[in-house]
């Protein structure tokens, strides 16, 4: 940026010096205008640099903030998934807990019933033993009944013991489940708290991001406006310089008594007679017309030797006709400039390009993509197009159908 500014300043200074030497009165006025505009341009460049830095910082912040928001979103997603899993686990544990409690209740009831039955059986057994103790008539039957009573009581006692064991196991399982539920609920509360914290951090980050975006938009708008002003100013300065040079050349030619200049009205016809004809370099709208124009921003009258076509950022620029690339490089005031020589003294000039897709000396046909426009936050860029015939600039709209 600073090198470009220095180059512009150098050009402006050179133009001012030459104008002051070659053009006595009107040139001095132009030179004064140039100095004045140079100061304004410098100031605007500084402002633009500062704004661009701020915008870059805002973009960096926005990126960081978006990254943080994304991270927080991911964390929140994981947290919600974790909470959902914990919730399902708690639900399953509660179901198991309920079943275990029911089992314990049933086992307690069964245990009580079994104990009661066992006690009553013992009473019956005791009464039966007493009643049959002195029975000498059926000793074997009594012996067998006693044995079976022992079997019965043992089976009952085993049943009670089994129920007791099952109940103890269930109670242990129940207490284990209760512990699990408590631990899981504590974990869920903890994770909820973490989730709430993440949510609040995300909200905070979003608010910060919204602030950054607002700031970024404001800066972008400001930068766009500044760049547009700078571009116009550079264009103005450049044209003034060219006008000075053109006058010098004409003056030298007139002094030498050279051949008369061809009529400009013939030039469009010469372009039209090119093999394959001409076509628009891109789809866009003419925003700066050819010829003398009054710039309201800087309140100066300038003579445009070409037109400026506003098109989409990054749009491809095509050759208007067949020819050979005569020049591809940077030109002060026009950025990257490509010049195609169509032969017979016909040239087409494409300024403010971002990239070149052809090399110097390479033959191009009509419609060959020669370069791209630069990208812009506003989504719009401007192509400078100039047609020259026999060293004279002609209105491109007279030779090529362009949307105005």
């Amino acid at each position: 940026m600073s090198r470009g500014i220095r180059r512009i300043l150098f050009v402006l200074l050179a133009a001012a010096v030459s104008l002051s030497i070659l053009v006595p009165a009107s040139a001095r006025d132009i030179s004064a205008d140039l100095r004045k505009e140079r100061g304004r341009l410098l100031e605007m460049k500084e402002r633009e640099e500062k704004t661009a830095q701020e915008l870059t910082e805002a973009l960096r912040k926005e990126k960081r903030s978006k990254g943080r928001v994304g991270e927080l979103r991911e964390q929140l997603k994981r947290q919600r998934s974790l909470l959902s899993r914990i919730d399902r686990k708690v639900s399953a544990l509660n179901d198991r807990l309920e079943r275990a409690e029911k089992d314990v209740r049933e086992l307690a009831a069964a245990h009580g019933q079994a104990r009661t039955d066992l006690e009553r059986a013992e009473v019956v057994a005791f009464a039966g033993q007493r009643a049959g103790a002195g029975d000498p008539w059926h000793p074997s039957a009594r012996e067998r009944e006693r044995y079976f009573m022992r079997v019965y009581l043992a089976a009952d006692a085993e049943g009670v013991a089994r129920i007791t064991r099952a109940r103890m196991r269930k109670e242990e399982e129940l207490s284990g489940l209760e512990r699990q539920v408590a631990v899981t609920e504590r974990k869920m509360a903890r994770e909820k708290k973490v989730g709430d914290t993440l949510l609040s951090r995300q909200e905070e980050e979003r608010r910060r991001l919204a602030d950054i975006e607002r700031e970024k938009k404001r800066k972008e708008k400001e930068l766009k406006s500044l760049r547009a002003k700078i571009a116009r100013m550079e264009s103005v300065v450049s044209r003034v310089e060219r006008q000075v040079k053109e006058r010098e050349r004409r003056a030298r030619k007139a002094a030498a008594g050279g051949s008369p200049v061809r009529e400009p009205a013939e030039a469009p016809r010469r372009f039209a007679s090119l093999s394959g004809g001409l076509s628009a370099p891109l789809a866009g709208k003419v925003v700066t017309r050819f010829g003398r124009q009054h710039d309201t921003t800087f309140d100066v009258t300038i003579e445009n030797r070409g037109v400026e076509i506003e098109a989409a950022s990054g749009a491809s620029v095509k050759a208007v006709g067949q020819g050979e690339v005569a020049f591809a490089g940077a030109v002060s005031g026009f950025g990257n400039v490509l010049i195609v020589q169509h032969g017979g003294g016909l040239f087409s000039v494409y300024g403010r390009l971002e990239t070149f897709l052809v090399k110097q000396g390479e033959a191009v046909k009509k419609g060959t993509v020669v370069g791209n426009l630069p990208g812009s936050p506003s989504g719009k860029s401007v192509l400078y197009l100039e047609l020259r015939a026999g060293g004279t600039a002609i209105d491109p709209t007279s030779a090529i159908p362009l949307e105005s």
Partner: protein
Amino acid sequence: MSERPSLWWIDWRLSQGPLVRETIGRFLFFCLFGFAFLSLLLSGGASRFLADRYAITAVLRAEVPSAEAEGLARKAAALPPVRSAVYRDPEAAWKEFLRAYPGLDPLRGAGGSPMPGYIEVRIRPDRLTGADVTLVTSALRAVPLVEQVLAGEEWLPRLLRAGRLAYWVGWGIFGAFLAGFFLVGRLQERARAVALAADFAFLTERGVPAGRLAFFRAAAAAVSGFLLAASGTAAGGSALFLCLRKFPFLEGVVGPPSDLLLPRTVAAAALFSCGAALLSAAASLLGWRAARYGRK
């Protein structure tokens, strides 16, 4: 040549009236003795009663199938001392148990029957001895299907002792009555010999030897005693048969009526009749001697 008079039934010819009375009395006694003899013989004292009360219980393991248990019961029934061996499945055991302890039925609830099946082994009355019981229980304990053998080891010796005591008491009483009957018979014979002493002296004076007279009298007493004992035993046996038919519970003590017709029972009755004949003859000789020598 002098004619020698027959001495057979001399008493009958000399004293018909008293002899008829004696004969009727003896017949009635022999009826009672026959009844008692056959009862004691068939019952074996208290053996049949005790054998009906006593049973060996072979409690089977829970998982023994019915078919195997039935087979085991058949094998147990084939043992010599065993009268019967019956398999009762767990269901029957449970029902029997509930009959003994009716209050338990509602207590069991859905618990089901915990009872195992068992085989009830009953011993023959004549083999109800400690050795035979040990033989059977040892055989049953050796079978892996058997969980427990209940043979009343605690009280069986007492039972067997009581059985032996009852046996000897029964036969002792019977023998005592028989001895009393013998003594009464001797007295009757002596009394008749005294009463007929003049007639016997007359015969002796006419050349009839006293020993021959005594022999014929004893022989006639033996024959009559045999006949009376046989008929009395038959009558007593018939009465016992009728009693057993009329009162079946007595079968548990005496035995089934059909046992009366067993050859061994008939043989025992015949032996009893022979014994009675000998006793009658002995009573006749002893009465003769007592009358001859003036002894009581």
